[in-house]
């Protein structure tokens, strides 16, 4: 008996069911190998067995994303595979997106290592390369002979827990994950060598291609400020004394929501800051410097705006990953929107 079990995912075309006319094909489970699974099984050798193949039409998957995903997860689950493999999808766009989607879901929900393979311009590559290891392929199935051995090598590493090396070595799309290593030369020497090349006009390779930022367009102005509900959100690390939710002083993984209902001012006896990136002294003595409750209450009483929201949201901005910040922003925004907040004062430090 084989040591390691694999479940394979294919679309209707590669499973030999049909082309575009069969793209509405519902998820089907077959025992054993189908289509390109044969070549993969051969490359994997006797220690590995493709125990089942899941087949799904590309349109069906795309149009019934949640349902298809749930169904397929259930199908995969009962086999308890060591690795889940989808594709290769080459440059087939809907198939590529389906492979990425199902791989990500299997990894997240079942905790099983996953692998797919796609051409660099397949939209699925851009969408999922951060989450899933996607082997580089050519743009058509003519490249199957190259894709299969690369996939087999990575599947074996995943099954046995052997270290997966960098994208250039292993032949997968760079995922944009920053990983440390000890270089041969120190940073200053590498930087100087890069500068000498740059000054000569010779080709050089930067260690970090500049990231692209997710820019958020400002919202429209509030039309009726006199009746608007205003909330305070801050990355200044102001929390109740004792930091009950244990928000980190740097690289926060969470945010807190704390009540200011019925309070006229942020008392230093009640609030402090745990931010590790600025001079906290003044804010510890007067937390209103970051959550300006005192002034906001005055303006509220004077009728300058409608109402102050009953709590404020807070986290630590310093060293906090943009991925975490985006999650916090989505969650806080959702809650504020549900509660009918019209405007937010975002206090940075």
């Amino acid at each position, binding site marked *: 008996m084989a040591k390691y079990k694999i479940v394979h995912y294919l679309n209707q075309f590669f499973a030999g069911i049909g082309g575009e006319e069969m793209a509405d094909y519902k998820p089907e489970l077959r025992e054993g190998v189908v289509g390109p699974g044969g070549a993969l099984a051969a490359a994997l050798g006797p220690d590995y067995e493709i125990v089942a193949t899941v087949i799904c039409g590309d349109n069906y998957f795309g149009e019934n994303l949640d349902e298809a995903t749930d169904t397929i997860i259930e199908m995969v689950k009962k086999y308890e595979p060591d690795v889940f493999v989808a594709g290769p999808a080459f440059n087939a766009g809907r198939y590529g997106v389906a492979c990425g989607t199902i791989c990500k879901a299997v990894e997240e929900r079942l905790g099983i290592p996953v692998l797919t393979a796609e051409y660099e311009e397949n939209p699925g590559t851009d969408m999922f390369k*951060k989450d899933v290891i996607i082997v580089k392929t050519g743009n058509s199935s003519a490249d199957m002979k190259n894709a299969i051995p690369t996939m087999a090598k990575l599947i074996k590493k995943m099954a046995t827990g052997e270290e997966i090396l*960098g*994208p250039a070595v292993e032949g997968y799309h*760079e*995922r*944009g*994950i*920053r*990983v*440390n*290593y*000890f*270089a*041969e*030369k*120190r*940073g*200053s*020497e*590498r*930087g*100087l060598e*890069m*500068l*000498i090349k*740059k*000054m*000569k006009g010779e080709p*050089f390779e*930067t*260690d*970090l*291609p*500049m*990231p692209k*930022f997710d820019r958020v367009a400002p919202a429209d102005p509030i039309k009726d400020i006199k009746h608007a509900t205003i909330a305070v959100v801050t990355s200044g690390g102001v929390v109740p004394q004792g*930091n009950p939710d*244990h928000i*980190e*002083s*740097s*690289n926060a*993984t969470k945010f807190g929501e704390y009540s200011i209902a019925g309070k006229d001012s942020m008392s230093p006896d009640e609030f402090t800051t*745990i931010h*590790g*990136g*600025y*001079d*906290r*002294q003044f804010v510890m003595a007067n937390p209103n410097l970051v959550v300006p409750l005192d002034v906001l209450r005055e303006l509220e009483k004077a009728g300058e705006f409608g109402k102050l929201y009953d709590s404020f949201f807070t986290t630590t*901005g*310093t*060293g906090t*990953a*943009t*991925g*975490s910040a985006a999650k916090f922003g989505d969650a806080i925004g959702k809650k504020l929107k549900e509660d009918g907040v019209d405007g937010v004062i975002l206090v940075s430090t």
Partner: protein
Amino acid sequence: MKLELGKIKINDIKFADKTEVKDHVLYVNKEEVEKLVLEDDKLIGCHLEIAHPGESTRITPVKDVIEPRVKVSGGEIFPGVIGKVTPPVGTGRTHALDGMTVVTVGRIVGFQEGVIDMSGVAADYCPFSKTVNLCVVIEPAEGLETHVYEKAGRMAGLKVAAYLGETARNLEPDTLETYETKPIFEQAAEYPDLPKVGYIHMLQSQGLLHDTYYYGVDAKNFVPTFMYPTEIMDGAIVSGNCVAPCDKVTTYHHFHNPVIEDCYKHHGKDINFMGVILTNENVFLADKERHSDMVAKLAEYMGLDGVLITEEGYGNPDTDLMMNCKKVEQKGIKVVLITDEFPGKDGKSQSLADTCDEATALASCGQGNMTLQFPAMDKVIGTQDYIESQIGGWAGCVNPDGSFEAEIQIIIASTIANGFNKLAARGY
């Protein structure tokens, strides 16, 4: 300006009746050092401990790390802070105790003080796991205001380093290195065919625990200026800060600035090293704009063909880094940035808080968010009481046996953004 730097190799530190160096061992009179530290009435306690490479020892919370040096040709070390600012700094002869450091340790001022492990997995990431360290453990007076405590700790370390440096005054150094940078026209004429390279050195200047001193002047109060590279080797710049521990440029690192050292190595071979432009990282936008304009102007004025830029800290100073990069490149001068990265624990977020199109060349000093399992140590110099709230730690990260999990940003100088280490990050 020409400086001779003599290095005396120190293999061990021992306590003794007389403070002196004999056969590559530094003997230290404990009482004298403790008395020196306690001259400051802000400090009510001081004791010394020695940490050797390979020992099961952890030092934390670490405030600064300093190499003892002495001016043997007239002049004084740490001008404007400990010593006088004249005669000229960065010229003549200086002796250094090589292979050892003074480490100041004590209750945290902020969250920014870090960890040095003398063995185990974290030792690979810290330059001071490989030196013999004389730890000066200080205890502040009750209720001391943080700014005052920070200064007391800073001065204690510098005073001890200057005191120990005196032992090297009449010793014959094991090695003697010579560094020279000439006045600007002479320097340009010396190697007319080599590209003229400068170093833009950004000093941390954001506020409490984020300050640096140049001849005793708080760096947030100056405008960008020129500096002969050798001035730094006499202690013209001292650290008054603990930014995140991982990218703290300690006073030791100012003495041993890697960009300056490497530019001198290439000087006259494939570059003409013209000197240093010193600037800061103030938090006000007006300062950022004015000082990046001035940096670009000075780079142009010096006739540079290329520059290396380093920063200290992350987040807010990334804006200064990018403004400097953009404006210098727009003068037609080639730029390479050296910095570290903070892409989150999973490594998937953006590494920097700001970017610009001109930043086409960057040497990475590693990413500070990766986590390590720090083993329990037989001995802790200082206290582990604050690990969970120090930068890189989190609530619940410490186990009952004293082992803990934390991001490597808790380790002193692990990803220092001036290229001192070999650690780097790459895309996976």
